[in-house]
């Protein structure tokens, strides 16, 4: 694809939406969770003190998780500046230090917005976290936007 081609959003949606392209297992370290929370200004001991009986990850921790691959295999590359457009976290249950977490990432959405400077294409990856019993802990959406060059008439 060249910079002059427009991105075929419909065909990308058909081919890639919902496809899980990355999966890995990890666990969270208590001291790192406490440090994360303290640096963000959390003061409640359930976030800052690993000895608290209800110690848990701060709610936004999932935003820091990165998939091992940014896009599915065979996903085309595009010219233009890709920018982080935002992060969204949905939580079902608190994440705890030491528990085994499986993170699965899929292409959740591809959509466009048009403005005076041309069309912008948004790619939304969704990472879903489940515990060792398969219970969903939450999900994190990462949006990246690419601004297309206007088409020449």
């Amino acid at each position: 694809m060249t910079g002059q081609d427009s991105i075929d959003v419909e065909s990308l949606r058909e081919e890639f939406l919902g496809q899980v392209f990355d999966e890995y297992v990890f666990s969270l370290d208590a001291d790192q969770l406490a440090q994360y929370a303290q640096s963000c200004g959390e003061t409640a001991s359930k976030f800052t003190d690993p000895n608290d009986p209800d110690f848990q990850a701060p709610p936004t921790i999932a935003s820091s998780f990165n998939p091992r691959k940014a896009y599915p295999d065979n996903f085309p590359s595009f010219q233009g500046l890709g920018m982080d457009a935002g992060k969204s976290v949905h939580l079902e249950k608190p994440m705890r230090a030491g528990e085994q977490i499986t993170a699965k990432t899929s292409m959740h959405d591809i959509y466009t917005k048009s403005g005076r400077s041309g069309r912008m294409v948004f790619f939304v990856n969704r990472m879903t976290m489940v515990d060792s019993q398969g219970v969903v802990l939450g999900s994190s959406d990462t949006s990246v936007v690419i601004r297309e060059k206007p088409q020449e008439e």
Partner: protein
Amino acid sequence: MDHPIRVSSSERNHKKSDKDMAVEKISDVEFGEVLPAFTPDTSLENVKKFVSAAGWDSPRFTDHEAAKEQGLPAALVPGIMSQGFLSAMIHHWAPNAEIKMIDTVFRAPCLVDDQYNINGVVTDIDTEKGSVEIDLTVTNSANETRVFGTANILI
């Protein structure tokens, strides 16, 4: 059955200004209430602590000169740290709040060592579900919005 109280943002009226007690139950929450502002620690030392914990260590966050060499005005506060500041503000206001959703848009960068305010306004209350929606912003000293978003919490 009674319907939950739901009020639209267009009905927003401005709140009691002297509220400084922590919110403990849904009936403590007022529509249009402005959450106590929070000035976060954006020092280089604290950002280093954050990126180390997050596994996001990069010179663009921890070194002003290296960031400038990448074409940035200075080292950046990671967007996810701004999201963490917003979450902390909610907990300062309502210590028992359970954040179910937080959605943030990074409109413009926040710079390390600059001063920011972390702001929130209650825009919706559902007493039946015990849920509250909050509009969120991170503003700089010129009152320009750098990050905005919404959160949905249970109290």
